[in-house]
């Protein structure tokens, strides 16, 4: 149920109650009804298809870098 959790997703496009998000190359739609004013470029955490919280951008980028390293090793 927690698929994708822990990986921040970047908002590429807002489509009404949904957003197109990017999980390091994989894009999919997620609902943004649980958050106020989600903007393009924001990083969000996704749980069962819903964005549940926003991340601070610097930290999101840091995690993405860290994950990349873990995946490489």
């Amino acid at each position, binding site marked *: *149920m927690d698929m994708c959790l822990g990986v921040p997703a970047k908002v590429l496009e807002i489509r009404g109650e949904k957003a197109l998000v990017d999980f390091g190359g994989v894009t999919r739609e997620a*609902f943004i009804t*649980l958050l106020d004013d989600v903007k393009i470029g924001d990083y969000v955490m996704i749980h*069962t298809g819903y964005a549940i919280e926003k*991340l601070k951008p610097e930290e999101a980028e840091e*995690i993405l870098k860290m994950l990349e390293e873990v995946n490489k090793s």
Partner: protein
Amino acid sequence: MFAGQPLAPRHEQTISRFGLRSLLPEEVEVIAGPGCPVCVTPTVALDRAVELALRGVIVTAFGDLMMVPATRMSLLEAKARGGDVRVVYSVSDAVEVARRNPDREVVFVSVGFETTAPTTASELLRGVPENFSVMCYHRLIPPAMELLLGIGDIHIDGFICPGHVAAIIGVKAFRIFAEAYKMPTTIAGFEPNDVLLAILMLLRQLRDGEAMCENEYSRVVREEGNLKAQQFIDEVYDIATADWRGIGRIPQSGLTLKKEFEDFDAEKRYEFTSMKHVDINPGCNCHLVMIGKIYPPECRLFGKVCTPQKPYGPCMVSSEGTCRIYYKYGERPKL
């Protein structure tokens, strides 16, 4: 000895997958708590979903629920016998199934903790078609933690709380454990660094004789949590005493649909055959695994009678079940 209890299976996954236990000093023991939503869903929910599927209702559920053993059969077996059971990734997919099949009845088995509850609430508030209803089995994490503290023979020195639950209910919901119960508490993310840092924070508190609620996962979790999601929960659900599979009844630990939404409550919409619901099959030790009293390999059925391909107990099914995690990653020897 220090025993820290990570409540989220995702923490256990991280610990096992990266062999973190082998990095920790021998005195530090980390045991998984009852945070697997699929494992704690009482059999009655599955039995009723199976019954509806066999009666021609479309039953939608998260994939993790499919193979969970129930009293008569799992949802997967119901599907094999002709029941229309469909795996969905989110509640919105289930609502979509209902929209596309206006002449059929569609039920969504809504399980999970504070993180999943607002997603179903959000759909009910947006409006769902009349042929859609929900079996509401959401559970709450803090009451389960309180229960753990009351079990005398489990030794816990600190809690590692699930970051995704805290993202919704906030740090504030976990403060009581440090303040009233004097239990060192951290809220942690799910990367190896997160879990190690959370353990370090707990050890420092213990060394200094302190009990605080620290937020390791501050990049996501705020003091107040997600207020909008909390509001959705308040608008749609009442808090009620609830049964947890293998653990029993915990006061004020579950969510039920409010009266305004009872038309969408599958359990009010349909009649069910009365039967005995068996939560724990003879020989399965999930009830002990879930509260951290034993490690999975201590169950005699582990890996022999009970495997992910043919799970005998609920903890062997979901990728978040403790037995499943142990089966997959094993445990590395202590250094």
